[in-house]
């Protein structure tokens, strides 16, 4: 009744090419933006921000990044944790000021504003990601998935051993100093809940808009051609080198940004093996699969699902039934595993597909015949 393209006449190419051509979709999008920017910041408290919104926003960025690589370009990567670590450490270095000794001369860079630190961290990660993406030109499928684990283990090891990366701190941890934007703190110990939230939300929105438009454009079509069959894509004139490496770079850019936010805004202090281990790689991959491969909306849905599920389970089992926490943690593993399997059996294309089916139903409703 509401959701249909009939009667929605486009008179210019600009109208026809817009991101959400259907009116209902467009209004829903504006509505979500309105709620996220204008309503939620006034209703937040620390618990909600730290337990739900921060992880959701940050993992959404990571999931969008990984979805570009796995869902759009078809290159399975298990190196997400390692790339997030690159983002976190790069952000830390930019935040605290970089000094490099070259031939006995010190080149020092002053600390950079947190927003630009995060973006620069993304760029650094993009370079690293493209570097680790090089083997994808020769290696395909599972071999590539396993090969990306090399990035995961090597990078985590590197940030454990490379003292310059954590400014020679004795504990090997990195701690986010107090930094702000427009005079409002967003990192460090004294941060208002809404400031954290808005900072991450702005970056997420930018990332999502960029990702959505990249995947709609010629770059995204090239990625999808490579995904569907790389040899055929090569024959019709897609350069696999450019397509694959750009997918790795763009994907790592987003993942690096999420890693930077994860460290600086969300956790504040990070130990690399603990925060960016192999489990993180799997977690983000789960989000992408459960949300739906090749869908930006799916990345959000998957991140929301896997952030909310443990919180819910914990509240029910520990808070509701009073079971010991270790038992609840094990049960959580069991349930998450079972749910993933159930999901794959019921809907291998993820939550995004459910949404698509729902929209199809909505188009015909209330007269399905």
């Amino acid at each position, binding site marked *: 009744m509401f959701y249909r393209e009939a009667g929605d006449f486009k008179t210019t190419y600009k109208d026809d090419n817009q991101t959400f051509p259907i009116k209902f979709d467009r209004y829903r999008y504006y509505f979500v933006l309105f709620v996220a920017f204008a309503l939620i910041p006034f209703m937040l408290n620390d618990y909600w921000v730290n337990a739900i919104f921060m992880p959701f926003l940050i993992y959404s960025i990571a999931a969008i990044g990984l979805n570009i690589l*796995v869902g759009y370009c078809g290159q*399975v990567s298990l190196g997400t944790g390692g790339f997030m670590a690159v983002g976190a450490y790069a952000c830390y270095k930019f935040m605290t000021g970089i000094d490099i000794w070259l031939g006995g001369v010190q080149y020092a860079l002053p600390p950079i504003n947190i927003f630009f630190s995060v973006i620069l961290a993304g760029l650094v990660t993009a370079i690293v990601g493209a570097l680790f993406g090089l*083997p994808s030109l*020769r*290696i*395909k*499928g*599972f*071999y590539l*998935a*396993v*090969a990306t*684990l*090399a990035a995961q*283990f*090597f990078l*985590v*090891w590197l940030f*454990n*051993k490379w003292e310059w990366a954590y400014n020679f701190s004795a504990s090997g941890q990195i701690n986010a100093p107090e930094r702000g934007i427009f005079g409002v703190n967003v990192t460090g110990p004294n941060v208002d809940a809404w400031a954290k939230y808005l900072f991450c939300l702005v970056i997420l929105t930018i990332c999502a808009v960029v990702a959505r438009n990249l995947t709609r454009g010629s770059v995204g079509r090239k990625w999808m051609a490579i995904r569907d*069959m790389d*040899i*055929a894509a090569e*024959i019709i004139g897609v350069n696999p080198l450019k397509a694959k490496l750009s997918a790795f770079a763009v994907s790592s850019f987003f993942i690096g940004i999420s890693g930077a936010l994860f460290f600086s805004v969300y956790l504040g202090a990070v130990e690399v093996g603990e925060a960016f281990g*192999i489990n993180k790689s*799997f977690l983000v*991959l*789960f989000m992408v*699969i459960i949300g739906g491969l090749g869908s930006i909306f799916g990345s959000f849905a998957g991140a929301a699902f896997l952030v909310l599920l443990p919180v819910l389970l914990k509240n029910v089992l520990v808070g509701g039934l009073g*079971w*010991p926490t*270790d*038992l609840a943690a*094990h*049960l*959580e*593993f*069991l*349930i*998450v*595993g*079972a*749910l*993933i*399997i159930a999901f*794959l*059996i019921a809907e*291998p294309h993820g939550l995004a597909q459910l949404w698509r089916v729902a929209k199809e139903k909505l188009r015909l409703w209330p007269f399905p015949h």
Partner: protein
Amino acid sequence: MSDQLVYAMEVFLNGLMAGVLYALVALGFVLIYKASGIFNYAQGVMALFAALTLVGIMDGQVPFAHLINAMFGTELHHFGWHLPAVVAILGTAAVMVLLSWMVQKFVFRHLVGQEPIILFMATIGLAYFLEGFGDIMWGSDIKKLDVGLPQGINAWIDNVTFNIFDYGFFIDNLDIVATVIAAILVFSLVLFSQYTKQGRAMRAVADDHQAALSVGINLNFIWVMVWSLAGFVALVAGIMWGTKSGVQFSLSLIALKALPVLMLGGFTSIPGAIVGGLIIGVGEKLFEFAIGPMVGGATENWFAYVLALIFLVFRPQGLFGEKIIERV
């Protein structure tokens, strides 16, 4: 002979032994991948689960004791028996067969015809499930596993090498036993797949599912059998690693050690798993010995992957893998 060279030789030998253990895990992967095209990430957790079950049966633990205690406020812990190792191993093998059957019935039967990546994800889900299940069933504390395998330094090798080099090599008895068992296991697997009816059926399924189905091979049975075999291999690997370092969560991480072995050897080749395991085992030990101290050590975590990665760039199907032919 210089000291360094003698040390390097010892490291080399130990690397070979470690490689055998890696190969043992990789073997389980290869079996399942060959027969069903599923890349079974849960292999490592299966080894952990098998070892947990073995210890549980031997010590007579009450399964799910922790859960039952939490739900009903009881104080259950042990049945109060100690079973001999052989009985417990047989019992565990039975549990693994049951597990294989359930995995086939409840998971992979419903996923026939899905893309490989979906199947792979399902095995990661399975790994999570089994990990939680194993912990709930048997508890998550570190357990000691002793099925009567010899352990400690091998005195004979120590003596012989001392007479030759003036320096006794430290070779663990357990590693030697593991090598022998792995050799027997591989040999019998090869015999099984070459000369028995079921083994041939298994190879037929590996070649082409539909062709195998059309000549009357029961696919479901073969898959359950292959998963059981992989479960059995996991049990052996679990016993070896469990005896070596205790039965604990980190046991499941040996799957991550087996992945580069697989890449190097090729996903579809049993000899490849063995040779790959040996190369990785020796390579990472020697690298840690020679280069490790210069870069701060602990290179074993990633060296195997980087080695496999570099190797694959030159030979994308691995050492013994089937040649990848791509058609449009």
